[in-house]
């Protein structure tokens, strides 16, 4: 036997092979029609620029679509999905090889290539598919985790794939047995079927069985292909496309801006007001449930479920997709929106998109980080909130007080007993308006409302100021001229108020020629970094931990201060603020600083860095009274307390107050303190006679 001559006969036992081509026509026609329907629907959306920066997009595509970068983060699902995914690719390639070999003059299916790839590798990957589907079935039918959506469709998909792979091995096995294939050993799984059938069945029975099962396999496979665009299997195509067209700018810059001069509606309550990319998002969902699984609001038992929001909107789109195409010409420029008024509202008490659910979101972006296909759940939630807030003036009471206060006092803390400059008492800090030449200030220290007006956080800003001074940084504050950056207004959905505040701040900062900003509030940091450029305010922006880290690195800040022994013996766990970590990708600076805190040991919470769990204060939720049994801050505090740490380090004034409350409720008899990184650093390197407070 000459292995270079090894091959097999395509179709072998099968007659009427022309029928395959005949059946292929309606299959591909239905498949194409299904996707055409989808594409037409997406194109009825508003414009979005998502085919720019092709290099970056290609990279992301290779990493997270081809490379399954996010899918494999979850161990069990990652394993079975990789098995099925790679199996599908190899089997698809194998089918292509057969087609080329049979239908073109290139007879490639022979020799070592036939033996190694077309026989051995294909068999192994076919087995992968069987095992993968079995693992998925165990999860879906036996362990039944909450994150899944239990539909018949999903079950049928598993059954169909399993049947396709199994019947593939059956026909291979019978062909091997009947033809006494000399290369049988190269197809180990098929050979097992051959060996098992041989004693039980006559050659004639196997030949008949082969014909029947072969056609059955073909019909199931073609049926499956035609079904793809109408089932969640369409994710095979929509997911890679969605990843390619994902938002490249980080979650911190993912909210849309509104042109108030021209907008016909503020916020979104009709599908036609979404962009084509939003509509694609709905179709790309794989129902994996990871977003809901990590959602802090959902975790504590609130009705918010990002997965169900996406799926309910997908359902709505499929139900009335054609209706919102009525006046649209499908060119992706938003003309489909003309028909919006005839459409059902997306906000509906009876669905997952209820006002109650929408107003439970902390905008933490954990859902977006968890989604294997880069769906943008949070911006859609904010879109709908905008509609409720700006068109309907309908929102929770705590948020109303916050917005009222922002409007009349430019800070969200109604009833605070402090002014913006009280914290500076005894520190003699330069205020820009009182300086002869404000340009002398190397950097603007942006204090933030949460730092200046909340008693607990004034130590943080004092520590930050003292550290800056110790490092010899020439800095100044805006004092009473500082207004809220508008972050709470924006997250709650009051884009109008946000814009007003942002424009005011940009104007003030322009007046003083501010170029560099350091702030201890990640929300302010995010607004400056990602949102103010839109209003003409572009600055070099640092979170205080980043700035202090640089000062230490460069030696400007002397790290050999009078290390205070009280923090030296402690164990510290750092809580990543959503708007520093996930939204802006900074995980190291605060940890570097903590490493400097006189010998303290750092431990990590189970959910940290990009999977950090929100303190519960984002998205305007810091101003809402949560039901006592549904408090996100307590859930997080418990996790922090469980690490055994005696100091919970934070880098955000909202995290500080939320976790303070949470830790006090959950620490039991143990002494556990919540402290900002700057406070801890000052204790460690500050001058011993001036510890904070």
């Amino acid at each position, binding site marked *: 036997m000459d292995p270079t001559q090894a091959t097999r006969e395509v179709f072998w036992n099968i007659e009427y092979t022309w029928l395959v081509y005949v059946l292929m026509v309606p299959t591909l026609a239905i498949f194409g029609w299904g996707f055409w329907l989808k594409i037409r629907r997406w194109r009825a959306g508003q414009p979005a620029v998502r085919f720019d920066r092709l290099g970056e997009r290609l990279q992301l595509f290779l990493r997270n679509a081809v490379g399954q970068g996010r899918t494999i983060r979850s161990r069990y699902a990652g394993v079975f999905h990789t098995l099925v995914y790679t199996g599908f690719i190899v089997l698809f390639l194998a089918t292509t090889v057969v087609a080329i070999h049979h239908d073109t003059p290139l007879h490639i299916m022979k020799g070592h290539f036939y033996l190694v790839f077309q026989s051995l590798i294909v068999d192994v990957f076919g087995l992968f598919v069987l095992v993968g589907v079995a693992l998925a079935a165990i999860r879906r039918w036996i362990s039944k985790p909450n994150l899944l959506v239990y539909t018949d469709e999903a079950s049928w998909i598993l059954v169909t794939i399993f049947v396709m792979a199994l019947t593939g091995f059956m026909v291979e096995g019978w062909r091997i047995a009947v033809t006494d294939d000399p290369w049988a050993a190269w197809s180990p799984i098929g050979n097992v079927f051959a060996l098992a059938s041989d004693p039980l069945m006559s050659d004639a029975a196997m030949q008949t069985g082969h014909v029947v099962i072969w056609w059955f396999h073909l019909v199931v496979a073609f049926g499956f292909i035609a079904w793809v665009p109408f089932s969640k299997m369409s994710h095979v195509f929509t997911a890679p496309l969605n990843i390619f067209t994902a938002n490249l700018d980080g979650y911190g810059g993912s909210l849309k801006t509104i042109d*108030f001069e021209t907008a016909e509606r*503020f916020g979104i309550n009709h599908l036609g007001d979404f962009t084509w990319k939003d509509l694609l998002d709905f179709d790309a969902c794989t129902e994996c449930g990871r977003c809901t699984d990590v959602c802090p609001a959902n975790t504590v038992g609130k009705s918010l479920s990002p997965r169900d929001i996406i799926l309910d909107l997908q359902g709505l789109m499929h139900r009335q997709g054609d209706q919102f195409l009525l006046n649209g010409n499908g060119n992706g420029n938003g003309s489909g929106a003309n028909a919006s008024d005839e459409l059902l509202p997306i906000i509906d008490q009876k669905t997952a998109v209820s006002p109650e659910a929408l107003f439970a979101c902390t905008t933490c972006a954990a859902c977006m980080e968890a989604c294997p296909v880069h769906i943008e759940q949070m911006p859609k939630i904010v879109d709908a909130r905008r509609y409720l*807030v*700006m*068109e*309907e*003036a309908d*929102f929770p009471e705590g948020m*109303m007080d916050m*917005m*009222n*206060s922002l409007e*009349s*006092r*430019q800070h969200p803390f*109604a*009833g*605070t*007993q*402090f*002014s*913006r400059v*009280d914290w500076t008492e005894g520190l003699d800090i330069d205020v820009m308006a009182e300086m002869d030449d404000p340009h002398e200030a190397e950097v603007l220290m942006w204090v933030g409302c949460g730092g200046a007006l909340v008693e607990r956080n004034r130590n943080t800003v004092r520590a930050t100021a003292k550290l800056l001074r110790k490092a010899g940084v020439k800095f100044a504050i805006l004092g*009473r001229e500082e207004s809220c950056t508008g972050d709470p207004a924006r997250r709650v959905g*009051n*884009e*109008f108020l946000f814009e007003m505040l942002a424009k005011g701040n940009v104007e003030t900062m322009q007046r003083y020629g501010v170029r560099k900003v350091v702030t201890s509030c990640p929300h302010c940091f995010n607004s400056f970094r990602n949102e103010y450029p839109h209003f003409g305010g572009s600055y070099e922006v640092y979170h205080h931990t980043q700035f202090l880290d640089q000062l230490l690195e460069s030696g400007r800040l002397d790290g050999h201060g009078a290390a205070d022994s009280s923090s030296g013996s402690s164990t510290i766990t750092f809580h990543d603020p959503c708007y520093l970590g996930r939204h802006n990708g900074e995980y190291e600076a605060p940890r570097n600083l903590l490493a400097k805190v006189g010998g303290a040991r750092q431990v990590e919470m189970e959910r940290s860095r990009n999977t950090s769990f929100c303190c519960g204060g984002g998205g305007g939720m810091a101003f809402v009274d949560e039901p006592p049994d549904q408090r996100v801050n307590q859930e997080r505090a418990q996790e922090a307390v469980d690490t055994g740490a005696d100091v919970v380090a934070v880098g955000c004034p909202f995290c500080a107050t939320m976790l303070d409350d949470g830790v006090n409720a959950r620490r039991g008899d143990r002494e556990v303190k919540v402290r900002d990184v700057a406070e801890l650093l000052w204790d460690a390197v500050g001058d011993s006679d001036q510890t904070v407070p």
Partner: protein
Amino acid sequence: MKLLVCLKQILDPDVPARDFQIDPAVKAARRGGANLVTNIFCENAVETALQFREAAGGDVKITALCYGESSAEDCLRKAMAMTVDEACLVERDGNTNPDAAAVGRVLAAAIRRLEQDGGPFDAVLVGRESGDWGVGQTGGLLAEELGRPALGFVESLQPGNGGVTLRRQTDVGIEVAEAEPPFLVTITNNEDNVPRIPKTRDVMMSYRKPLQKLSLADLELDSEEIRAGSSIFEVEEIFIPTDEVECELAEGDTLEERVDQLAKRIHEVVASIG
């Protein structure tokens, strides 16, 4: 029907204690770092008027009127954002604190002027008192100037048989009254007339609504006379009261000793106050 709501702009009553300053020369609070807001009872009055319009099902025109500095335009814009139809500002010059009677005279003159141009107002709504001085006289004195019957502490207006049904708070409970326009009411707050947050579209529209500005001269009032006030009373002195707290810890090694000590001290203190 036509309703008129009077508004007053005041220093934010929520101003942090440390930011609250007094100017002894003019015997009044100083603006300092405080913000300016619409007096809350005036906003309750706006809300009450809006709810009346909603209950009446249209054809009710609401006008907002304010006697204040040019900054008070913000209060009127906000009222229009809440969907009041039109507004009028009588401009006050300088940092003075006209008393309730002087304000009543100015408002009455303005109302008469507005009525000349656009017909009589069926009801005038005034906040029960303001959050700065808390005198609570403006409504009554304005009614006097206008020669209208007035009811105080009203919390809601509803269209009634031919007239208007009023609910007012009294010491003994809620009183329901039927009133025949024209009349004046002072409005107090209840859980139903919490001022609404305007819709963004209405905020934007408020800039397109008419805001008439009048000066005292337009109303043929002598500004010196108004500035001097009516002298129905005179402010003698104005100061921020200081609270002095003395803190003492009950000492002792055991809980019992400390409780004994505490009881003893309470006796002594009570005895010393006598």
